């Protein structure tokens, strides 16, 4: 039995005290422990940002890549070795600014992995600039007069992109978050969770209290909500202005990327080898 604590390594996170990201890390540990994922089968891939530092805090194969490009890297890993449990962690800037193109296409491609976005509605690591998720009017170093733009409606976008699992959670709602991550990891295909998480240093608007007051659980908004209906999901998001937590949309029909490919007996990693002489001969014969 691996305990949830064992999924943490010995490195002291350099997050600010009180940062919401601690909560997400704990939830991931909890879910991994529930699933008893062997350390070596877990690959935690992140981009760049405070949030993305998590790639260095969990005890597993952790890769901290470049800003906005965790998803393509992770998809390469998954193709190479389908046996791995791949979790991608990213911030709202990493995901929705520089990385949005990759996110759209990862969702469309539907590989079997889990994408967790740590949405603090600001750029943390670079010390407080506006992010694509910053609220209108939000004052930052780069919007001293208040943000003039409307934050991206990321969940409807994801649904439009064909994402087959779309959920939202709150980093400090430990139980809710763990259960959503569990469902995300159980999903066959690409699962995406936008996780609100307070940045105690640079976001003094969307604080712990603010989220507590403004976020509603889908069960309380629509008891017995069925995430299987796309139109309903869109409606829910419009009605709640996106301030809802829970699994919003899930599509069990669309086959995952892996399902559309010929089955693999083994990982590609295990087959770095010459093709058989026959196969090579066949290939060459086309040119002879």
């Amino acid at each position, binding site marked *: 039995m691996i305990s949830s604590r*064992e999924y*943490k*390594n*010995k*490195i002291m996170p350099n997050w600010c005290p009180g940062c919401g990201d601690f909560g997400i890390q704990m939830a991931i540990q909890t879910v991994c422990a529930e699933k008893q994922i*062997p*350390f*070596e*089968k877990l*690959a935690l*891939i992140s981009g*760049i940002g405070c949030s993305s530092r998590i*790639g*260095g805090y969990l*005890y*597993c*194969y*952790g*890769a*901290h*890549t*470049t800003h906005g*490009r965790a*998803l*393509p*890297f*992770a*998809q*390469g*890993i*998954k*193709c*190479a*070795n389908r046996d*791995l449990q791949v979790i991608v962690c990213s911030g709202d800037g990493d995901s929705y600014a520089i990385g949005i*193109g*990759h996110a*759209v*296409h990862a969702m469309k*491609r539907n590989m079997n992995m889990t994408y967790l976005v740590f949405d603090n509605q600001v750029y943390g690591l670079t010390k407080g600039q506006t992010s694509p998720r910053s609220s209108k009017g939000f004052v930052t170093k780069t919007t001293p007069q208040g943000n003039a733009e409307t934050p991206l409606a990321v969940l409807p976008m994801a649904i439009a992109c064909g994402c087959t699992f779309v959920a939202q959670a709150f980093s400090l709602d430990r139980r809710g978050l763990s259960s959503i991550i569990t469902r995300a990891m159980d999903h066959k295909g690409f699962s995406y969770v936008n996780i609100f998480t307070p940045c105690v240093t640079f976001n003094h608007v969307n604080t712990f209290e603010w989220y507590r007051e403004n976020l509603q659980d889908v069960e309380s908004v629509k008891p017995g909500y069925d995430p299987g209906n796309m139109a309903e999901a869109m409606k829910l998001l419009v009605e709640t202005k996106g301030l809802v937590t829970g699994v919003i949309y899930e599509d069990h029909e669309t086959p995952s990327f892996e399902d559309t*490919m*010929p089955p*693999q*007996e083994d*990982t*590609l*990693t295990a*087959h*770095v*080898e*010459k*093709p058989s*002489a026959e*196969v*090579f001969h*066949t*290939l*060459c014969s086309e*040119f*002879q």
Partner: protein
Amino acid sequence: METNHDFIWKMGGQQGQGVESCGEILGHVLAQEGYSLFSQRLFSSRIKGGHTTIALRISLHPVQTIGERVDNLVALDQETVDFHSPEVRDHGIIIADSAFRPKWKRTSDKTLLALPITDIAKKYGSLQMKNMVALGMSAALMGFPKEPFHRFIAQRFEKKGADIVEKNLMAFDEGMASAAEAMKEIPPMGHLENPEGRNQMYLLGNEAAALGAIAAGSRFMASYPITPASEIMEYMIRVMHEVHGTVVQTEDELSACMMAMGAAYAGARGFTATSGPGFSLMSESVSMAEMAEIPVVIIDVMRAGPSTGMPTKVEQSDILPAIYSGHGDKMKIVVAPSSIEDCFYLTQEAFNLAEEFQCPVIVLSDLQFGLCKQSVPALDMNRIPISRGKLLTKDLPALDPAAYFDRFCDTEDGISPRTVPGVKDGMFLSTGLEHNSYGKPAEDPKIRVTQMKKRLRKLQSVCEKIQPFTIRTQEKSNDLLIIGMASTNGAIEEAMEVLEKNGARINHLQLRLLEPFPEEVLFPYIHQSAKVLIVEENATAQLKQIFKSHFSCHDKFRSLLQYDGTPILASTVVKKAKEVLG
């Protein structure tokens, strides 16, 4: 009748008129017959319509260029006559479709035969048959027997039914007969002797590179279409199922490179292929691969730059960009194939180098390799064994709780042991940040220096693992040493045949390893040569600049530069070499 060693055939017309397919069939049939071939298409930037040509050189000796004067030109339109008849040699023959009423100023030394290409094609049902008629005429002109063509046609159209086969054969035959008839009135063309039957293949450099990747055990490619590299991905997609691999057409090159890197990090031999614009987009990722020691292979099939430049024209102008792109100090390997055949072998070596040295390897091919077809000796899958370097995949000593594998530990050769996700007790952290030996981010100056030195030191032995250049003779003291990289090899080699007859001591060195620069092994050649002529297709003498930064004998270096989008000709090399020799 006179016999030749070498015959150059060219055909031109509007895109869509069957020019390409005629050249394709001619090439395939003659390749099977054992001739040495080189074929080159001229692309216009239009998709359909627009002038296009295909040229084929048919020889008894291996050939690596299209040569310089055309023996037989087949013209489907007046543009072809106007543009290309000057390329026809003295006593060469132009076959022109009588249907467009070719305008031609009779000259004493070239003959134009206006033959009923369209008319015959129409007779057999469709204008599309023009290629068959022209093929028959060409075969007659060069004195090839009809049987192999018949066999090929029958096979190719088999699926379309006996009727189609029959019509094509008849069109071919009537073309042949019509040309044979016309030739009676003109002085005879030479014809080629029979080649010694050889076990050979006829393929594009891009296809050779893709086959190389497969032979190297690569089972993952991520790529984004771009001229002139797309064929690599397209071929991989077409055949990857045979080896149970995966190819992903990504949303862009940033993704392609990172996905290939992810696969490489995870232990598959991930690679990507692109050309200049896409390569530029990969710079940031390459820099990460250097820092995180990820063995990714990137093929850059160079085309004329800067920017979108001339996408269908050749150039070798990504040399310095390949070496230096990506911010920070460079820690990568850059190699260049020296022939279409070498596209196959060097690609395999690139995968080995990537895993042995745990760094990105950039393969600089070029449009002339990528999109020209050549006959090459049958490719030997086993010549380059797979070497995975210090990769560990099993039986690692157990780790203490929460302890990491010492992935980046300092070693004498600078190469650390490597594991991949999935390997028990092999967990480590991977990051583009500077890090300690476990991969934990670290800014301590001592750790920084240790890791930088380690990464730089490991590259010192690259030169021992790969043949850093090809050299025509082992002679080190030369009056002139000609140096090139990538597809200039053919023109230089042909020039050498001429130059060697000249008495001067001349040698030719084609560089295969550009970075880390093989200074030490090059030194004797440079040092002992009176003059060094560096031949390259770019405007800023990129290759020469590297030599000048490594060798102080700046006076010795001369440049032959060409950057008009056309490949350098052997005659240009000869002329320049003579000029340099004085």
